[in-house]
């Protein structure tokens, strides 16, 4: 109940300010909002729990699966070379489907189309591990997504980001554009840039995807979250990545 009052107050403050996109110079990664201990956890590969999934992902990359009995490595060889920078421009347009897919969906498409293996369930350990391993190859790379085919989907994602929803009648923009750096029940509100996904969230005590985080936020404002894999979630991911263009990838990040 106390939380609802805090959110209502933030809402009032937000109504006074206009909903405006954050200027390029003011953009900050979620990393910058963390305390020194949590930053240290992310910075040290020997202490970053997300690296456990990256290690698992490396094993899976080399494992033959499906009726085609192929490993990712059989087509893509060394991920360090072939996957370098790839995650930095996801979600990407898929010609066959005529819409954007995120990295998890791309991995599953590869499994079904090329390995003849069944798709991995969302948030399963194997899918998270493979995604983390692939995305980690983009660590340090600048996020980019200039493909004009994606424009209508970026626009849809932007609408979803702006629209008010749920029992608290809040849009993502109300907190993450208008009130970042203020506090929500003791934690700082970040700008919501998905620079480090999939990431190890202390609250989850596990690595998790951007879709999991979005669903948690949407549930948090008391709205019905879209199902995993829903086009709305991919459009939101796409908009968020477009909003974060130019920022460096940090996968696997650590966040509270």
């Amino acid at each position, binding site marked *: 109940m106390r939380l609802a009052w805090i959110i209502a107050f933030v809402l009032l403050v937000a109504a006074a300010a206009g909903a405006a996109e954050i200027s390029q110079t003011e953009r900050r990664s979620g990393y910058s909002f963390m305390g020194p201990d949590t930053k240290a956890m992310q910075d040290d590969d*020997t*202490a970053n*729990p997300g*690296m*456990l999934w990256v*290690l*698992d992902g490396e*094993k899976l990359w080399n494992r033959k699966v499906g009726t085609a009995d192929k490993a990712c490595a059989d087509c893509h060889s060394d991920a360090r070379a072939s996957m370098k920078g790839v995650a930095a421009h996801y979600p990407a347009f898929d010609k066959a489907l005529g819409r954007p897919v995120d990295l998890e969906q791309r991995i599953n498409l590869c499994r079904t189309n090329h390995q003849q293996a069944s798709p991995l369930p969302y948030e399963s350990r194997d899918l998270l591990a493979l995604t983390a391993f692939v995305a980690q190859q983009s660590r340090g790379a600048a996020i980019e997504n200039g493909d004009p085919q994606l424009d209508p989907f970026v626009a849809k994602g932007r609408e979803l980001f702006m629209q008010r929803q749920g029992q608290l009648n809040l849009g993502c923009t109300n907190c993450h554009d208008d009130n970042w750096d203020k506090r929500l029940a003791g934690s700082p509100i970040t700008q919501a840039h998905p620079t480090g996904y999939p990431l190890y969230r202390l609250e989850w*005590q*596990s690595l998790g995807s951007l879709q999991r985080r979005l669903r948690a936020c949407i549930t948090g404002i008391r709205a019905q979250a879209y199902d995993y894999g829903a086009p709305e979630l991919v459009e939101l991911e796409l908009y968020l990545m477009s909003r974060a263009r130019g920022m460096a990838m940090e996968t696997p990040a650590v966040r509270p």
Partner: protein
Amino acid sequence: MPSALINVPAKARRGDIVEIKTLMSHIMETGYRHLASGEAVPRDIITSFSCRYNDTEIFRADLYPAIAANPFITFFTTATESGTFEFEWIGDNGFSETASASITVE
């Protein structure tokens, strides 16, 4: 397939004090969480961690549910001779994992 992340310096001089960092993948289910139905989620934790250096135990830890998931444990030892560090994690439900790392001491 639990992974362990071990960090031991590959080389050291005799008498150096070296830091050993370990990270093991494990949910460390406390046994205090409950489902909406009221049933408790049963405890499932790593209860013991040990390290042997050329067969001599140099460090041991008893862990309780208050240790965070994916237990991270670091400790120190004096580098005395080249050889192997053997790590072992034992826990509930027959959990047993090992890992090893070598060191060259000159």
